């Protein structure tokens, strides 16, 4: 009744509007959202602020802004933890894993999506079987395999493991993208005299760029952050990745909070920057990965 009088009778059928018409409820909803946003964000904010404080200041003033914004925590952490080296290794490992995965997964997805051949059902099951099984459960045979191949203490062990573990999900994700392409494209290219390989590379591959972006985003986060495989495969300090190197470093300097907070910020910053710059693509990619995978 009141709504009709206010001159917005249509507001009843528009989703979201009912909330706007009840100010008290709206305030409550925002208070609740703000509370949870604080729970998720504030610990990260504390981490950033603490990285600029000295250790005694972290103890005496854990929540406020730092008095002098000292950069010593970062500087020390960067120098003492050989952070630059770990960063280089992490970039190398994640980058090459993505590259290897794409080189291996896109043609398989393409073949499964657009050709008919006798072994197809079998291959389909072969890849499907891996989609729900974490590769970690095969770590012992994998470890011995890497040892026998002489790849322990070699970043190649990580690259091969990550790329292999990304295969099942990426193949299925990319196959759904390839399946949506019209077959006229293929036929036209074939009439123009393209070989099958050229059709794939020149015609079809550029059209599944969104799928490739999804695959890259879905895999980059767990690989960049992975701690388990470096812990087992890499002992040599020269090849440690950021999570492993920082874990060792934090363990050694646990009483020097300024140093540890500085190191934590350094370790989180690369992915955090990527996330803040492209959070829309990140979120879209990860949900697509979860829903379709």
């Amino acid at each position, binding site marked *: 009744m009141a709504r009709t009088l206010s001159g917005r009778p249509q507001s009843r059928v528009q989703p979201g509007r009912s909330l706007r018409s009840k100010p008290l409820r709206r305030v409550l909803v925002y208070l609740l959202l703000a509370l949870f*946003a604080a729970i998720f964000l504030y*610990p990260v904010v504390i981490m950033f602020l603490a990285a600029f404080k000295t250790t005694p200041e972290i103890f005496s003033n854990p929540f406020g802004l730092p008095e002098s914004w000292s950069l010593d925590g970062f500087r020390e952490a960067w120098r003492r933890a050989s952070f630059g080296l770990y960063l280089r290794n992490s970039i190398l490992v994640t980058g090459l894993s993505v590259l290897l995965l794409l080189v*291996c997964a896109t043609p398989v997805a393409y073949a499964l999506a657009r050709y008919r051949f006798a072994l197809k059902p079998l291959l389909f099951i072969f890849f499907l079987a891996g989609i729900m*099984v974490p590769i970690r459960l095969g770590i012992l045979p994998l470890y011995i395999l890497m040892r026998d191949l002489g790849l322990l203490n070699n970043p190649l062990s990580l690259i091969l493991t990550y790329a292999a573990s990304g*295969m099942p999900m990426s193949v299925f994700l990319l196959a759904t993208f390839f399946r949506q392409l019209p077959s006229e494209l293929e036929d036209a290219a074939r009439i123009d005299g393209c070989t099958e*390989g050229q059709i794939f590379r020149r015609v079809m591959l550029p059209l599944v760029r969104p799928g490739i972006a999804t695959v890259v985003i879905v895999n980059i986060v767990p690989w960049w952050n992975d701690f388990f495989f470096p812990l087992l495969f890499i002992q040599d300090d020269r090849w440690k990745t950021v999570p492993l190197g920082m874990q060792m470093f934090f363990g050694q300097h646990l009483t020097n909070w300024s140093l540890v907070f500085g190191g934590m910020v350094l370790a989180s910053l690369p992915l955090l920057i990527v996330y803040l710059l492209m959070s829309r693509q990140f979120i879209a990619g990860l949900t697509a990965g*979860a829903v379709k995978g």
Partner: protein
Amino acid sequence: MRSWYRRHGHLIWFLLPGVLLYGIFMAYPLVSSLGYSLFEWNGFVRGSFSGLQNFITVLTQWPYNERFWSALFHNAQFFVVTFIIQTTLGLFLAVILARRLRGFAFFQAAFFLPYTLSMVVVGFLWLLLLNPRWGAVAQGLQFAGLGDLVQPWLGQRSTALITVILVNAWRWLGFPILVFIAAIQAIPREYREAAVVDGAGEWGIFRRITLPLLAPSIAMVTILTFIWDFNAFELVFVMQGPSGSPNYATDLLATFFYRTAFGDPTTGGEPGQVGIASAIAVLMLIIIGFASIFGVRYSQSSQVEY
């Protein structure tokens, strides 16, 4: 043969690299885990065939049996608590956010941000925040006059596991929220509008429209949570050490497996029980396998096409 190659040769080149990579570095290790568990091992050297002896050892022989059952129970708690949090709080936040209120993008990005942090950082961050003397949580409580509530959360048996589980939920929750939001937004508007016209309230709409249509997504996220929680390793390793201190109160299947296979530097336990460790891995594989088959079945049976 020649004409076959001319017609299908390209397929070999399409398939070969992927099949080899996946076959050698994923399928082979997973399958041979099974084989490993059926042999005696001397360090990392394989001995004679021993049938199910490794499984019998894990399930019946002290201390393996005690560790195994306690770790399994901890993993189950890990999953149940996470599941409850994500399907109540997570779903609730998703339902609110899915209406695209002003600030939608900010809140969504905020809830998801911890997911981008590495477990090593999350573990050490909360280790410091939860420090009972200097940590921000203790100081905040003190400041609020609730100093009595301050406890060595990670150091005592009664609270250590639940604290680790909550820290994990803090990092993880953004993911189910994202998936739920996407699923809610995929529900056609007309359904909701029709219900509003029919006089349904917020709760009625949620209970009779949103929730049933979300069932497949909830099932999907639940499987992923289950798989993840039955593999959880990093957070306990980083915060509580490889033996899940205090006194195995936070020990999980994966940390138990790790100690059995690679040894525990803190207690100097006997390393390289490869056969027994493989048996643990196979048991984990069976648990996860059954749960995912069950979950995928349910998810598919409740699937809807709009």
